[in-house]
């Protein structure tokens, strides 16, 4: 019985979700972090509703993206340490496709819980209810984009020890446009302006990253292991 790409994707996705489930505490960490940050803001700035409303969208986006950074570093670390990545390289499947599945699984286990609690965070900061939909859409596009960009950088720094610092430095400039467009959409919606354009830009960037990031990731990991 030869393995089909579909069966391989299913096996890998099942594995990653199962692993995440067995280590549920790791999933809770970014969620807890985001919850704490969003809770502390009103205490630091005072409970003035107009002020909180104005900053709510930006605060939540930045909080969610930073919370994702916490888990990003570990994306391929386990696989490199226990030799699973070598097995993945030797499997008769396109590495880029397998990595796309891994990135998807990582997004599901880190970003999706954050998106689910984001309306709660937004409520705590008095974000108007009609804007919440736009916030969730912006997060649904911005977080996978960040996962994909992050995955390339994680793969590039996979060979180096203590890659955390380097990763954060490299990711910063790439994060900026994502935050600008996502926060721009939320701010526009809040002011009653059309918000489709920044969302469309995010969508376009996401499509581009969906195609290119797994390929770049595969090339980078091959280089990282070839040392």
């Amino acid at each position, binding site marked *: 019985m*030869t*393995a089909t790409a579909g069966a*391989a994707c299913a096996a*890998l996705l099942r594995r990653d979700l199962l692993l995440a489930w*067995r280590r549920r505490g790791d999933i809770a960490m970014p969620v807890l972090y985001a919850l704490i940050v969003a809770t502390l803001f009103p205490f630091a700035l005072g409970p003035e509703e107009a002020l909180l409303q104005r900053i709510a969208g930006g605060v939540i986006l930045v909080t969610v993206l930073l919370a994702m950074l916490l888990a990003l570093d570990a994306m391929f670390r386990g696989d490199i340490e226990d030799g699973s990545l070598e097995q993945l390289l*030797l499997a*008769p499947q396109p590495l880029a496709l397998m990595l796309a599945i891994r990135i998807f699984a990582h997004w599901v286990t880190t970003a999706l819980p954050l998106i689910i609690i984001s309306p709660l965070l937004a409520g705590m900061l008095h974000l108007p209810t009609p804007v919440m939909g736009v916030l969730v859409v912006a997060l649904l596009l911005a977080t996978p984009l960040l996962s994909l960009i992050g995955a390339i950088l994680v793969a590039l720094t996979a060979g180096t020890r203590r890659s955390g610092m380097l990763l954060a430095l490299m990711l910063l400039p790439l994060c900026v446009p994502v935050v600008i467009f996502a926060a721009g959409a939320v701010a526009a919606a809040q002011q009653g302006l059309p918000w489709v354009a920044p969302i469309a830009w995010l969508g376009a960037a996401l499509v581009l990253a969906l195609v290119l990031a797994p390929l770049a990731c595969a090339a980078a990991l091959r280089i990282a292991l*070839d040392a």
Partner: protein
Amino acid sequence: MTAEAPLLHARALCFSRQEERVFGPLDFKVAAGDIVLVEGDNGSGKTTLMRILTGILHVDEGTLELEGKPLRNIDAAGRIVFLGHQLGLKADLSPLENLRVAEGLAGRRDGVDAMAVLREVGLSGYEDEPVRRLSAGQKKRAALARLMLVPAILWLLDEPYANLDREGIALVNRLVQAHADRGGAALVSSHGTVTFLGGEPRMIRMHA
């Protein structure tokens, strides 16, 4: 009819790390049905050679061909199975779940199934135990089970005897012999001065 290209053919294969020769030059051929013992002291480059043969590490100098074509990781995929010091097992999954992943990724040899291979490597009763709770030798056995399951033709075993008891060593030898009898080939590395394989296997000697 032209003579069939050997499964693996290395000519003047060398590897250097920062200008320092790790091993080589090595010349060898591995044909279907061959069992080859790679022997050398600690640090003589056995693991490096194994990683080059998987195609993960680049060929530094010389040529290396798999079935007459230059070995590249992308083409070799699925033909080669590698058992290294890192066993490629997920500690939070059970041996059975680990095998299911391997099966999904690399396929399954005809006529075998995950439960049967686990029984054969002596892990009956441990199918659903997380790998982290198994002993070092049992982990090795779980990794050996993967070799039997996937349909790769070339086995690269880096120090497969480490951590195994007498019975485990016999198991490795039995598996390798059965694989060779099926028309597969295996390269087995060992630092030991004694060879554990029965009979007189071919040798590749590495010098530090």
